[in-house]
């Protein structure tokens, strides 16, 4: 199973800033392993962040997003103690959902 994300969310003056680190190899499908065989592409393709049941960001990644992807954005609203939920799915169907608490 995929490793957990690290989600930080902080509200300042009514705006919540969310910073997400995802644990993923993000294989391009072009790298060769030690034996010379191509390592198949394996990358997060879709990311969705929700707050209070509302989507606050939806992203699509290609394999050119760096290993262990980082994503930061801001939305209006959010209060201390509320949750931001982030989900991703990759091109092999693996997925992961984690929550961060707004500070």
């Amino acid at each position, binding site marked *: 199973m995929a*490793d957990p994300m690290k989600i930080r969310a902080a509200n300042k003056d009514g705006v919540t800033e969310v910073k997400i*680190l995802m644990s993923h190899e993000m294989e391009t499908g072009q*790298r060769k392993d030690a034996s010379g065989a191509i*390592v198949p592409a394996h990358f997060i393709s879709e990311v969705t962040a929700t707050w209070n049941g509302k989507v606050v960001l939806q992203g699509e990644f290609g394999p050119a997003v760096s*290993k*262990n992807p980082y994503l930061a954005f801001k939305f209006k609203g959010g209060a201390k103690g509320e949750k931001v939920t982030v989900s991703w799915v990759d091109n092999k169907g693996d997925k992961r959902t984690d929550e961060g608490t707004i500070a």
Partner: protein
Amino acid sequence: MRKQRRGTPHAAAKRMAGSLAALAALATLTGTPALAQDKSMDEIAKYREMLADGNPAELIEMRGEELWKTPRGPKNVSLEQCDLGLGPGKVEGAYAQLPRYFADAGKVMDVEARLVYCMQTQQGFSFAEATKNWYSKPGKESDLVALVTWVGAQSNGQKINVPVKHPKEAEMVKMGEYIFHRRSGPQDFGCSVCHGQDGVRIRLQDLDNLSQSKGAQKAMRTWPAYRVSQGTVWTMQRRLIDCMRQARWPEQKFPSDAVIALEMYLQNKAAGGVLESPGIKR
């Protein structure tokens, strides 16, 4: 390379051609085209700054915490009673004070040697099992590195403090200093060639003078570090074993006492440097 031990600078350069060593030598022999490079260095600084927020090492740190607290090994116990030098289970500030002498083991250990010791004595792992994946490879993250990353992070903001209190510690500092300044191997090479003077630069890497307190502080305070080029965290053991490879020295076995001696010497020199751990590097 200002003080050539033998031969002309030219002959020396030839001898080292083909290795990274040659680059280091050239950098000092020719001096650096300062003007063009300074703007580059500003942009590189901006690059590093943009990476500092959201260091992927934090993911590895989280895994390390989990590993520390999870019962594992033949004895199915966690590492929570491991003594990293400040008493069983006390992790905060421990990394800043390593390596140090451990009476129970009768020797000076760094964070990795100590974790391996705890994995053996408390969890019942064999030495081979505990050290088998001591560094991370693509697609295969090392548990030991994750543990070191978490332990290191628990010293974030603390001052490096590795004084000499035990005779064995004094011995290790001496040995580290000796190794640091010694030149050997097929290239007649050593740490001090790359790290023993001011203003050495390999490609865009400024190499600090590690034999001075300021340079040692700057280098030692940001480890363990996420290496962007490797996509994973390197520990100081990994860093130094790789530097020894660059010096064309014999391959080190992990955990290496020669490395622990170097760490002891460098941490001792770096006293007072405030840890920013985990770091992030090229």
